[in-house]
């Protein structure tokens, strides 16, 4: 079986986000970038499936400017076999990403696509679901357990209030949640080997996908600063405020 994994280059989760003074975007100049944590979990899951013998090849794809090849190499160092870079001048919207990935799926015909549930920059949580819809295939989002069997994937998902288990006929799309696994470290020898693994570059034009624009970001602002509220003098006053003013109890 073949698994396709997608990875995205995003701001490192340790870096404090700053909005540009002109409010056009978040300031990414010279900021540390990294592999999206949910994508890292996706790569780990795919590699574990390969190590269990159920999967023979893990292909990793990423979309964006040349720098995202760094994240593909990281995925290769973690155990993926082959990389695909779709070269775009900037990061396309989720729908376009899904369309590009649909073309990759058509060409590669993986049995399973594993993706992070969302990226920590846009926090959209859409692409996996959109890809599944475009392909007319079933999906299991927010996966916390993935079991591959003959012709199907049995996936436990984290939903509000608990866990849900679905059985999907392959090919299917799975998006990962935080508790699915704990990604491994890339070892030095694997990092060096990753440099020699194949990495093909293609473009939206070659794939026949138009980079349409469906949304426009008008401004980006820092969140409203929480300011201090009021001091209450007693427990009674607190209860009163919470009941009648804030209406949270």
């Amino acid at each position, binding site marked *: 079986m073949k698994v396709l994994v997608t990875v995205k280059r995003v701001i490192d989760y*340790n*870096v404090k986000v700053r909005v540009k003074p002109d409010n056009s975007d978040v300031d990414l*100049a*010279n900021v*540390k970038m990294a592999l999206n944590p949910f994508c890292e979990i996706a790569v780990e899951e795919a590699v574990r499936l390969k190590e269990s013998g159920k999967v023979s090849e893990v292909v990793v794809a990423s979309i964006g400017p040349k720098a995202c090849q760094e994240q593909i190499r990281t995925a290769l160092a973690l155990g993926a076999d082959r990389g695909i870079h779709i070269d775009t001048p900037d990061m396309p919207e989720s729908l376009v990403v899904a369309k590009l990935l649909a073309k990759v799926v058509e060409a590669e015909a993986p049995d399973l696509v594993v993706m992070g549930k969302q990226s920590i920059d846009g926090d959209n949580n859409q692409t996996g679901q959109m890809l599944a819809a475009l392909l007319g295939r079933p999906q299991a989002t927010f996966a916390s357990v993935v079991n591959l069997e003959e012709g199907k994937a049995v996936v436990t998902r984290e939903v509000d209030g608990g866990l849900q288990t679905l059985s999907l006929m392959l090919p299917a799309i799975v998006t990962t949640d935080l508790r699915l696994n*704990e990604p491994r470290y890339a070892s*030095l020898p694997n990092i060096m080997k990753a440099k020699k693994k194949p990495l093909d570059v293609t473009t939206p034009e070659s794939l026949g996908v138009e980079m349409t624009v469906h949304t426009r970001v008008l401004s980006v602002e820092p969140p409203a600063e929480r300011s201090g509220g009021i001091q209450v003098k007693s427990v009674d006053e607190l209860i009163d405020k919470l009941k009648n003013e804030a209406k949270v109890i």
Partner: protein
Amino acid sequence: MRESMEFDVVIVGAGPSGLSAACRLMQLASENAYELTVCVVEKGSEVGAHVLSGAVVEPRALEELFPDWQDRGAPLTVPVKEDQLFMLRNATKAIKLPNMLVPKTMHNQGNYVASVGNLSRWLAEQAEQLGVEIFPGFAAAEVLYHEDGSVKGVATGDMGVAADGSQKDSYMPGMELHAKYTLFAEGCRGHLGKQLYQRFDLSKNADAQHYAIGIKELWDIDPTLHDPGRVIHGSGWPLDNDASGGFFLYHTDNNQVVVGLIVDLNYANPYLSPFDEFQRLKHHPVLKQYLTGGKRVAYGARAIAKGGLNALPEMTFPGGLLIGCEAGTLNFAKIKGTHTAMKSGMIAAETVFASLKEGDQGGQVLADFNVAFKGSWLYSELYQSRNFGPALHKFGTYLGGAFNVLDQNILGGKLPVTLRDLKEDYAQMRPAAEFSPISYPKPDGVISFDKLSSVFLSNTNHEEDQLCHLTLKDPDIPLTVNLPVYAEPAQRYCPAGVYEVIEDADGPRFQINGQNCVHCKTCDIKDPSQNIVWVSPEGGGGPNYPNM
């Protein structure tokens, strides 16, 4: 059995000295059509993550290494336009010194305001293009030795070890990196360097090394107040009573300034808090005038090796060399260490290459390094400024400053006297009973801030479940010695709030918040009991300094 990889040269630390050495090695290899394998290991999550410096950079070494550095896009883009020097009299007054009274070494024409972190990132790109393997996220945790006692290389730390020492699911044993020569470029007070100093008695002919702590912030400021290339230095308040040091404020690009305070670590008063001194300093009009209406973006701290020539150890030992601040090549008179670190790396590279080319299989003491070093501009520079630091230590800020003006401006450092400064910094601390606690003003949350908010902006992070990397030789000393005698000064000299003494119901408890550590090494230096031994945490942990 750990796996191993073989290289011709392994370099520990991807800072200016390590990366310059790497680049120079590959340049020489290329020029001589010689195959060379060079690898650099770096404990930070990326190159530059742990690099922190002011800085005003003298381009001299960069010019030698890459004459076309401008075309290559080196991030030295803000030339210094103006130097200002202030003596702060008190919280509100200051005297601006006329240029004549400024030591020549502090004139910055021809230099650049730059981020050494970004410079390191750029050097890493050049190095990779030249064929150097750079591995960020891997901490060199152990020095490896041949049977004959020569250095064989280093081993990276095990990853995936839990706080109780057990192996987690993600456990990955460290890797041995074997090399003919290993260059140690960990910066000031490197933890492996500390072991090498001991093992090979590298300081036997040198004065004690002297240190300072540099605490720095990066600020977005009001564009109307911004003047790129303006370089401001000063001294005096608030440090004149208890400690020596000085501040800097440099206008870089992007409507940003960098501002910081350097406090010598030979201070005696255990109640001194360099962090709080820095926070209150920023309220002085000379600095506040730029920070008003601005926003703090990043924070960090790092110890500085400032002993200069007199404190330079033997830099060569069997199978390896110390380069950069690991040895202590910083020129304190100029308060610049980047170009000197780079040059020391380049000299080391040239020495190592020449020896390898002759068929050297490694493990030797490369005595030619000392010859090359002595004949270099690096040595002349360090010789000229050898008295600067000791003068300030010996004579204090004012007289020491006057001495330095005499020595540097008029005598060009050729005063036929070498001031010796032999007492170790940690030994200078006096008991708390001789002092009163210092009442620092509360931060206002606009110009000055608390420690935890500051650490937050260093983007520091460590894997939670791991062994604590601030190790104690004796776990009881903080409460049985440091607390009663010195009021446990770790609570104050640490700029990241790592150390706390907490009053529990059954008495005080010493708590180490390793998570907060910004890898500055001040605790290792300043603990009066020399009980704290900083070791590398799991690779990839620590600060993630942006543009610092």
